[in-house]
Structure formats: structure tokens, C-alpha cells
């Protein structure tokens, strides 16, 4: 049942979506076919799926850890941006150098940047009991302004002819392509590795157990000697670090530089991915692919059946609504209580 709801949510979304878009005067069946199936049946689209899914999976895996601990980091978008900024900082410092050590250093800087940015809400929550939902969200806007400041100001490329953008990263600063002849870069195997690694840690280690206990039952965790504050720190550092990693992988991969258009809401979409994946790292891997399918399929439907891209948002929201609604069936059992006298609740 636990794993049946996401599948049911996707299936019902297709049926309802076809119905709604037909009623709206669009080709409803075509929309479902192009959005959900064409990206799978057309092998040329698989590379696009890998490119779209990779950042979503990496961020969502971190968020799954955080949400399991009952820590509501909704500012992954900000940590993603700061990770990219930190990694780009290394790239700009090493611009005149060559060597295989540069890219790993950039990735580490990305992780450190994202984790450091998530450390602010962790500090505020553990020291001052400030709600992390609000601080992570506020810091996301601040990060967008930081990015704008840098690309419009000190980091603007001297050869960009007034365009707000950094210089293009050099070969040693860019992700290598892993499958010849495609646009699949190193980010994709990293995403798969991250999902498997975190799944292993979460399900097989004391750390994973601690996170799950603190999230599920703070009282039991206290009794068991697990520190709630430590878990808050770990949850935010892990989710922030992974979001930062996704950020620098995106900057050093598909973008190749920083531009004001860099924030593409991956950090917010990854929240859907984390939930659709049942807050399980391997689930996030599958869910990331499903969300990537809708993005790629939305672009297909735009050109083939002139469906506005906005329709993708409606499909995604519907999927999440149905999943959350379906959860009630997982957590509770429906009982007939008709004609039963009311009893005092325990």
C-alpha cells in the first residue's frame, strides 16, 4: 500500500488530466500521451530525461533525509544557488590554471557552500528555536539577490558585451560527458550514486535510524539518548550540501557559467520529488525520473499539439494533491461507525 499510492497518484493524474484538458478544449488524450509516454518511447528524449532528473534527484534525496527528521528545509533552491556560487568562485579563482584537481575542488566548494547556507537556519533553530520553514524560505530570496549582484557586478565577464554573465568555464572546470554522442554529463552517475549511498546510510546505519526516530517520535528519541539538535544540524547540512552539489553540477554542466536565469525552481520541484518518492532515497530516484518525464513531455506537447507548457504545472500539482490525499488511505483504515454511540476519545 505504501508504494501503491504514488503509482495510483500518477495513474489517476493521467485519467483526470485527460478528462480536464479535453473539457478545456485541448486534445486531452494527446496531452497525456505526449507528456507521460513520448519521453519514454522516443530514445532521443532519454538523454533529456537524464539531464533534467539528475539535479532533481540529488536535491530530493537530501530533502528526504531532512523531512524524515521532521526538519522542513524548503529553501533547497537557495542552497542550490549558493552551492553554484561557491563552486563558481573556485572556477573564477582557478581560471588561468589547468589540471584534473579543479573540478573536484569546485564540487567540494559547491557542497560546502550549500551546507554553509543551510547551517544558518540550523544555527537559528537550535540556538533560538526559530522556525526553519521561514528562515530557509527567506534565505532563498537573499540568495537570488546575491546571484544577481555577482553576475551583474563583480563577476560579470569582461567579454560579455554588457550581458550579465560570468565567463564560460574552461574544459577543466566543466563536467565531462559520460556517454559519447549524448548530452549526458557526470551529474547523472553522481545522482544515481548519491541516491544509492544515502539509501544505504538511511536504512542500514545508526545515523539513519537516529534521523528516523527523531522525526517519527521526538519523545522516544530523547529517551533513547538521541540528540534532537544534532539531528537538526545533520538534516540541514546533508540537505543543504546535496542541494549545493546539484547547484554546482548544473553550473559546471548544462549552463557552463552563471547567469541570472540560473535559478530554475529545481529546489522547489525537488520537494514534490521527495514526497512522490515517499521520502526514500531510491524512491526519489524514480520520482525524479517521473517529474523529468513531465518536463520533457511538456516541451514535446508544446511543439506537437500546441499545449501550453503551463499544463505541466497543473499535471504536477494534481499528482502531488492525489498522492497526499492517497496517504490518508495508507495511514488510516476506513471504518464504518454509523449507528455506533459516540465514545470519549483516548
Amino acid at each position: 500500500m505504501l508504494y501503491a499510492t504514488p503509482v495510483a497518484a500518477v495513474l489517476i493524474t493521467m485519467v483526470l488530466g485527460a478528462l480536464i484538458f479535453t473539457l478545456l478544449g485541448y486534445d486531452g488524450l494527446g496531452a497525456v500521451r505526449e507528456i507521460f509516454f513520448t519521453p519514454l518511447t522516443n530514445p532521443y528524449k532519454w538523454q533529456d530525461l537524464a539531464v533534467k532528473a539528475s539535479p532533481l534527484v540529488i536535491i530530493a534525496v537530501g530533502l528526504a533525509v531532512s523531512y524524515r527528521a521532521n526538519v522542513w528545509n524548503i529553501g533547497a533552491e537557495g542552497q542550490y544557488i549558493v552551492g553554484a556560487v561557491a563552486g563558481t568562485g573556485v572556477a573564477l579563482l582557478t581560471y588561468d590554471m589547468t589540471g584534473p584537481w579543479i573540478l573536484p575542488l569546485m564540487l567540494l566548494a559547491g557542497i560546502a557552500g550549500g551546507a554553509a547556507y543551510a547551517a544558518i537556519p540550523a544555527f537559528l533553530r537550535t540556538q533560538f528555536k526559530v522556525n526553519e520553514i521561514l528562515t530557509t524560505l527567506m534565505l532563498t530570496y537573499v540568495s537570488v539577490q546575491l546571484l544577481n549582484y555577482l553576475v551583474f557586478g563583480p563577476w560579470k565577464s569582461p567579454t560579455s558585451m554588457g550581458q550579465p554573465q560570468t565567463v564560460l568555464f574552461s574544459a577543466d572546470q566543466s563536467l565531462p560527458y559520460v556517454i559519447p554522442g549524448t548530452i549526458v554529463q557526470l551529474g547523472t552517475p553522481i545522482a544515481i550514486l548519491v541516491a544509492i549511498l544515502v539509501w544505504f546510510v538511511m536504512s542500514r546505519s545508526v545515523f539513519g535510524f537516529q534521523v528516523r526516530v527523531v522525526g517519527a517520535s521526538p519523545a522516544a528519541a530523547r529517551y533513547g539518548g538521541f540528540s534532537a539538535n544534532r539531528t537538526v544540524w545533520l538534516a540541514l547540512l546533508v540537505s543543504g550540501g546535496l542541494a549545493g552539489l546539484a547547484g554546482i553540477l548544473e553550473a559546471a554542466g548544462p549552463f557552463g557559467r552563471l547567469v541570472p536565469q540560473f535559478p530554475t525552481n529545481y529546489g522547489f520541484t525537488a520537494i514534490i520529488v521527495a514526497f512522490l518518492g515517499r521520502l526514500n532515497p531510491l524512491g526519489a530516484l524514480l520520482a525524479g525520473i517521473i517529474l523529468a518525464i513531465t518536463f520533457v513531455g511538456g516541451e514535446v506537447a508544446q511543439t506537437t499539439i500546441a499545449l501550453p507548457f503551463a499544463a505541466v504545472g497543473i499535471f504536477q500539482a494534481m499528482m502531488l494533491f492525489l498522492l497526499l490525499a492517497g496517504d490518508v488511505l495508507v495511514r488510516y483504515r476506513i471504518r464504518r461507525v454509523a449507528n455506533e454511540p459516540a465514545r470519549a476519545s483516548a
Partner: protein
Amino acid sequence: MTLDLVIAIIITLVGASTPILLAALGELVVEKSGVLNLGVEGMMLIGAVITVAVVLVTGNHWLAIACAALAAAAAALIFGFLTLSLSANQVATGLALTILGTGFSALFGQPYTGKAVPLLRSPFPPELAADPVWRVIFGYSPLVYFSLIMVFVIWWFLKKTRAGLILRAVGENDLSAHSIGYPVIGVRYLAVAFGGAMAGIAGSCFPLILTPQWVERLTTGRGWIALALVVFAAWRPFRLLGGAYLFGLVMTLEVYAKAAGGGFRVLPSELWAALPYLATILVLVLISMRRGGSSSAPACLGKPFLPTS
């Protein structure tokens, strides 16, 4: 700085503040009942697009605002059904509502994109607002006066009425409120629907006061600012008014800083833009330090109500 510039800044800032004030007032009532609805941005977009459509079809501003309020309240009730009746996670459901509103408004707004919408002008006779100084008092859209009245109404409702007391009890301790017989879920449904209606009217402000046309993502993240504002104001209506105008002032100065240069250039415009958010975080810390570690947030904020668990 000339008087004309000051007046121009005041009028711009009041216009910019009104939608965030309206949406934040609605969200304040929702949060006071113990529910966190992160879908404000989505509901505002629904309100904005419905306003544009109804004004362009019927030409009636008031009908448009009413439809916007109803449509956004209906969207809020989807959120309400999932979080209140099905105890779904409020953060995830609110985000889904924002995604839905963004998608719906972009799709529904397509035929109306770029068409000029007649502004909703001051209800007072134009002679009153002819003089620039009087314009500061009489020169605004009726929505501005409505938002100011609502600040008082909501303060009075929460502080002085029995219904307001029940709403706060539900938000502070749902189990106790339930045990003395108040309908926790029912109160929260009403609050969520009210918050939706206010967000819808806030959405109306964009085409009727600020940018008289529909473009995709017209509200440009103001719904999120409204959420920040509620926290910034520590869940108090009159502080919300001050906070909204302060946020509006910063947003206006940011625009002037980009355009004018000179004295405004001391700080980069991006820092101006980031200030409201940094200030909100600072306020959160200060509130929690002064209260000795406990915040002034409603105690049940964001938690589902499960009477039998």
C-alpha cells in the same frame, strides 16, 4: 528631494504594499487558526487572472474582485480538504497549491495576455485629488482603503470578539479547544477559505492598481513576501500594516535606486531587495530571544489535528 518626488514615492509605495498587506491579513487569520498555507502565491495568481478575465469580458471591476475572491477561496478549500479532512502535510500541500495556481493562471490567462485592463481608480471626485498633497489621502484605488479597513476589522475580530477568541484557541491548543466542544476543523476551514478570498483580492490589485494587463507570473513572488510579512509582524494586524508599508518602501526605493542613482547608489540595489528578507529573519530571532526561547507563533501552526492520537 522635492515634494513631488516624496509624493510620488508615497503613492508608489502604498500601491506596492496593498496586495501584500491584503494577502498577509488573510494568511494571518489562517495561521492564527493553526494552519500554515504556503499557497498564497498560487491563490494570488488565480485571483489576478480571474480579475483580468472578468474585467475584460464584463467591464465590471466589482464583479471581477468578487469572482477573484471566490475562485481563490475555492482553491484554498482544495488545500483545506487535503490538510484538514485528510491530515495531509501542510507544507507539501501548500506548495502544490502554488504550483497549481501558477499553472492554472498561465493556461487560463493565455487569451488575455497583454490586453489593456482599465484601472480601478479612486472613488473620490477627481477635484479632491487634483492637488498633489491631497492626492496622498484621496488618490488611491478603493482596494487600498479596503485593505486599511480590513486591518482594523481583523484586529477587532481577533481581539474583541468571541469568534476571534475561539479561532485563537483553536490555533494555540487544538486539543483543548476540541475538548470544550469547539469545532476545530470547521473553524480552520472557515479561516482557510477567508485567507483564500483575501489572497484572491490581493491578486486583483495587480491588474487593477499596479500593471494593467495580464502576463504570466504577474505577482512576481509577492505572495511569498506576504508570508514573510506575517512572521515579521509577529502575527499582529497593526504591525502587519507597518510592516507592509516598510516592505513597500524598500521595494519602491529599490526601483528608485536602479533608476535614479545618486544618493541611492551607496548600496547595491540587490542589497535593498534582500533587506526585507534579512530583516524578517532578524525579527524572528529577536522575538524568540525576548520571549526567552519561545516564539510568538501560534502553538499549533502547521500541525495536523488528530483528536484520537
